C-alpha cells in the first residue's frame, strides 16, 4: 500500500468497509490518528523533502475525510468508485412525482417571507426535508450494496436536490434572524 493506492480508494486509507453506512465515530478516530502521524507539524524539524511529503500525505488524509464525512459527498464518491462520473450521475432519470413534490416544497419556502410566524413554518419544513433525506439514504445504501448503481445514482440525484433546498432554507433562516 502506498500514497498512490490510497489515492485510489479512501476507504482503504481508513481501513473501513466500502459501504454507505459507516461508523462516524470510527471514521473520526481514524482520521485524527492518521493526522497525528502524518501532519506536517509532526515533521516541523525534519528535512525539507520529508516536510513536503508530509504535506502531501496530510492533504490526502484531509481529502479522504472530506469525501467520506458527509452522506451526500460519500454517496457521490461511492458512485465514482463504481465507475460513474458526476455527469453520468446527474443524467439519471428522476421520477415525476419527486419533481412535483420538490416544486411544492420550493413554493412553500418562497411563500414564507410573507407569513406571520415564518420561523416555525421554516422549522417544520426543514424537519420534513430532513426526513426525506434519511429515507433516500436508506434507498441509496440498499441499492449500492446490491450493485444496482443506476438506482443508487437516482437516489443520489434526489439527495442533491434536497441538499440544495436545505441550503436555501438555511439562507432564508439567516435572513429572518438578521432582519
Amino acid at each position, binding site marked *: *500500500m*502506498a*500514497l498512490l493506492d*490510497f489515492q485510489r480508494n479512501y476507504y482503504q*486509507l*481508513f*481501513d473501513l468497509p466500502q459501504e454507505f453506512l459507516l461508523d462516524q465515530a*470510527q471514521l*473520526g*478516530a*481514524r482520521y*485524527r*490518528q*492518521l*493526522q*497525528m*502521524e*502524518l*501532519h*506536517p*507539524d*509532526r515533521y*516541523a*524539524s*525534519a*528535512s*525539507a*523533502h*520529508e516536510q513536503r*511529503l*508530509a*504535506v*502531501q*500525505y*496530510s*492533504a*490526502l488524509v*484531509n*481529502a479522504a*475525510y*472530506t469525501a467520506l464525512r458527509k452522506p451526500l459527498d460519500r454517496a457521490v464518491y461511492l458512485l465514482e468508485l463504481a465507475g460513474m462520473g458526476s455527469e453520468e450521475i446527474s443524467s439519471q432519470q428522476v421520477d415525476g412525482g419527486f419533481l412535483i413534490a420538490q416544486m411544492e416544497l420550493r413554493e412553500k419556502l418562497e411563500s414564507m417571507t410573507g407569513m406571520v410566524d415564518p420561523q416555525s413554518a421554516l422549522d417544520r419544513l426543514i424537519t420534513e426535508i430532513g426526513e426525506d433525506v434519511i429515507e433516500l439514504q436508506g434507498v441509496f445504501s440498499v441499492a449500492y450494496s446490491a450493485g444496482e448503481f443506476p438506482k443508487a445514482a437516482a437516489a443520489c440525484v434526489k439527495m442533491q436536490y434536497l441538499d440544495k433546498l436545505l441550503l436555501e432554507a*438555511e439562507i432564508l433562516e*439567516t435572513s429572518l*434572524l*438578521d432582519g
Partner: protein
Amino acid sequence: MALLQIAEPGQSPLPHQVKRAVGIDLGTTNSLVATVRGGRAVVLPDAQGAVMLPSVINYGAADSPIVGASALALAARHPADTLMSVKRFMGRGRNDAEEDARRSHYSLAEGEEGMVSFLTSGGKISPVEASAEILRVLSQRAVDTIGGEIDGAVITVPAYFDEAQRQATKDAATLAGLPVLRLMNEPTAAAVAYGLDADGQGVIAVYDLGGGTFDISILRLHKGVFEVLATGGDTALGGDDLDAVLADWLLQESGSGTLEAGEYRQLQASARSAKEKLSEAVIVDVDLSEVLPGGGIISVSRDKLEQMIQPLVKRTLLACRRCLRDAQLEEGVDNIVMVGGSTRVPLVRSAVADFFGRTPLLGIDPDQVVAVGAAVQADILVGNRPEGDLLLLDVIPLSLGIETMGELVEKIVPRNTTIPVSRAQEFTTYKDGQTALAVHIVQGEREMVSDCRSLAHFELRGIPPMVAGAARIQVTFQVDADGLLGVSAREEITGAEASVMVKPSFGLTDEEITGMLQASFSHAEDDKRVRQLAEQRLSAWQLLDGLKSALEKDGDALLVAHEREALADQMTELQSLIDGEDAHAIRQKTEQLGRESETFASRRMDKSIREALAGVSLDSLDDEVMQ
C-alpha cells in the same frame, strides 16, 4: 554497516537537549512573547517588568527606530513619524488602505503601485519593516531572558488574515531574522492555551476582539487533537473602533472643531483609558483640558458607552452566528474563550454569554492568552515534546479560486477547508490555436473577480496549437500548514508546466527582502556568505540526522540491501561536504539526497499509516472491553 557519526557539539543539537522556542503575539495594539519553561508557558517581561510591548514604532531623526512605550510617548508630538496599528496595513494595497491611513493621520508615499508605505522622517517605511522592528525587540527580549539564540518561533495572525497578510507577516519575521516554525491563527492559539487545563474534550468557541480585527473560531477538541470546524470574523472591526466611537462622541460633546493629527491621537488615548475604566466604574470623568483646545471635563456613563458600542457588538454576534452555521454542529458549545483587552468590557462579556448560553472562561489574561498558546505550539513544533500530546488541524479562512471567462471566479478550495490541502481542477483553452493560458488567482467569497482579492498572476506557456477545448490543463492549488498557497498548472497532453509560490500582488518580492536584509547587515556580502553556509549546513544536518534515525529504526525492514547502501554512500558524501566551505555543493547534495531518500520516507509514512490504524483498532477493542 558502520553507523555514521554525525552529532557534533554546537552544530547538531543532541536529541534530548531542550530547544529554545518562543510564541509571539504580534498584535495591533500590543505585542508579547512567551516561552515554555519547566512545562509551563510564561510570558516574558522586559527589563522594567512590562510584559506588553506597545506595537508602536517611532522613526525620528535617530539612527535606529524607537519601539514600544517610549515610542508611544512620542505619538502625540510626532504623529506622522510614529506608526501605530501597522498591523491594519499589513499586506494591503495602497487604494485599500487610504481610508484607514486618513483616519490614523499617516502620510502614505505618493504615486506608488502596490504595497503601502508611510512617509516618516526616517524615510519610506512599509508595514512589514515596521513589524520587523517589533519582532526584533521581542526576539532580543527572549534571547536575553532565555539565554541564547532562538531555535524557532510561532507567530500568530488573525484567523481571518488573507494570503497577502500572512505572507507579509512571514516577510516581517524573515526581515527580523527570526526562524519561523509556523504561522498560527490567534483564536486557535487561545484555545490551545486553555486546552492544557481543560479536561480535553468538547466544542470551544473563541471570541477574539483584538485591537484592529475581530475573529471567531469554533473548534472541537478530542483526545489531544484540536480540529478547527469553522472560522470567521471581520478584518475591519476591533477594539480601536470602540475607542473611535467614544472619541468621536467626546469630540462632539466638547464642541471643538477639526483636530490636528497629534490631538486626535491624544483624544483616542483618552477615550481608550475611559473605556477601560468603565469596565469597573459606572461613570468616569474624562479631562480633555490638555487634549483639545477649549476642552473641559466630560462625564461618560457606562450606559452611554454601551449604547454607543452596541451596534459594533451586534456586528460581532452576527459573525458568530454565521460561523456557528458553518461549523455544522450537532451539539452545543461547551466552552467560550475570550481574547483581547476589549473583551473586558462588561457589555461584550454579557452579550457573548447570552448568545452562546454559557459563561466565558476567564482563567487566563485575555491579553496574554494568544502568546501563551503560541509558546505551547512552538515548544511542540521545535521537538521538545517528542511524545507529541497535541495536534492542531486548522482551516483556510477564505475561499481560493481562479478567474474564468466573463470575470467570474471559479472556487477551487472553499473556505473552512482543513489544511494542508491539495486540490486540482481541469480547464481548457477557449480559442483555436491558443498556446498560452493566463492564470489569475483570487481569494474571497464573491462571484465576480473585481469583488475578490487578487493574489497573483502567472502564465502557462508552450501549449501546442489545438482546437479550442482540446487542451487539458490541470490547475493544482496546494495550501500548506501555514495557510500559504502554491499553485501549479500542467497541460496533460504535452506536459507543459508552470507554477508559482504565491507572492501576493501587494507583498514584497524576494529581491526586496534580500535587499532589506543586506541593508540591515553592516558587512552585507561577507555576512550573507557566512549566513548561507550556516543555513546550508543546518539543512544538511537536519537531513542526515533524520535519515540516520530513520535508518536505525526502519532501514532493515523497508529497504533492500542495495537501496540502503546507495543511501549510505550519499550520506557519506554529504557528510564530507559539510566539513568544507562550499555552500552551493552542500545545497546540491542535500537536494539530491533528499530526492533520493523520498521513496524511503514515503515507505515509512505508509508504515505509520498501517501502525496508526492498528493502534486505533486496538483502542476501540479496549473501549468495547471496558464497556
